[in-house]
């Protein structure tokens, strides 16, 4: 890439200069351009001052204070756990093979049982269907009879007696729903964050 005499150093070029890896063409520009030379000198000054800042030490008690709150894993317990695991499962590959064999055996047994007991399965399905239907029907009847006995039932029913009323009721319900959703969205919106923050 060729640069003109007014192509001053970019921030990346300044980084390269500070790290001593500025390429030939840019170095030449730096040599010829007093403006960039002065800028690079000032940047170098800031970086040198930062690098010269001494490391700061916490109090001498710091390591002990930390260690008092750290849970060091008990090596004997860890060893005992590893031994128990080895005894129980053997080697990892043997454990894996046993698990696969068990799964295959279980699946095979399930298929065989299903094929030889189709009548039992059909009977059970029929019984389950009939029972579910009965329970559902009783539930619907209970809810319906409870509703009809409510004092507000007759008034509420009038809302659906004509197409115009039905449309009006639907519109009001939709409006209420949309208002509710918008209010919830506003309440649950995440506030804008000014500071970038890393999470572990």
């Amino acid at each position, binding site marked *: 890439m060729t640069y003109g005499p007014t192509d001053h150093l970019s*921030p*990346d070029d*300044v*980084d390269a200069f500070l790290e001593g890896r500025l390429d030939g063409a840019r170095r030449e520009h730096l040599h010829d351009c007093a403006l960039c030379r002065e800028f690079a000198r*000032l*940047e170098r*000054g*800031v*970086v040198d*001052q*930062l*690098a*010269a*800042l*001494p*490391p*700061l*030490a*916490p*109090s001498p008690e*710091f*390591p002990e*204070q*930390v*260690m008092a*709150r*750290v*849970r*060091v*894993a*008990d*090596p*004997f*317990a*860890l060893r005992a756990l590893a031994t128990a695991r080895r005894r129980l499962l053997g080697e990892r590959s043997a454990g894996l093979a046993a698990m696969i064999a068990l799964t295959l055996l279980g699946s095979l047994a399930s298929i065989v049982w299903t094929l030889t007991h189709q009548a039992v399965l059909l009977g059970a399905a029929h019984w389950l269907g009939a029972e579910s239907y009965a329970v559902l029907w009783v539930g619907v009847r209970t809810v319906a009879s409870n509703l009809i006995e409510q004092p507000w039932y007759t008034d509420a029913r009038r809302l659906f007696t004509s197409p115009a009323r039905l449309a009006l009721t639907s519109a009001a319900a939709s409006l209420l729903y949309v208002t509710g959703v918008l209010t919830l969205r506003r309440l649950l919106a995440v506030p804008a964050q000014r*500071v*970038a*923050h*890393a*999470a*572990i």
Partner: protein
Amino acid sequence: MAESRPPLAAATDLEIVARARAGEEAAYRELIRRYERPIFSLLFRMVRDRELAEDLAQETFVKALNAIESYRPEFKFSSWIFKIANNAAIDHLRRRELDTLSLDGSPHAETPEAIEATALQIGDRQETPLDAVESKELGGAIEAAIARLRPEYRSCILLRHVEGRAYEEIADILSLPLGTVKTYIHRARNELRVALAHLRE
């Protein structure tokens, strides 16, 4: 058979973490020894209060060492612990809104003793009185200028030019895109250059 292990001081961070996971207490102590100064320095320069920085550093180490089992070796241990420390500092700054702080000590210090105790202590190196005055003046000025930076600029500039971390590692520590990290560092250097201009005149 007795297992021969290299001395902890010569081991890599990863080897030390593995030994800590195996329950070797000395490995925990070695991790503290390696990182107490960089972590404390970063936190002190972020919050400008010795006592608070020490509390945050303690919180950082306790959190990291108690969760050593969940550390993933594909990341650098230094990135992981700096990330925890930076989170602790940023959380604190958010809570207290201490974006700009006093160079001379904790803003919460009420007595001269407390101010002295929480003030920045620079230079445990051997210095002549003249060196000490000059270093205090220059160091003081740059420390003050760092304290005036926005917290996210402060984290970036400290990690890059004081702790010597690579741009990529800083992006990893702060969970920011690489371009954003570069921009923050360039802006922070600009602000520091302007803030230190009076010393050059």
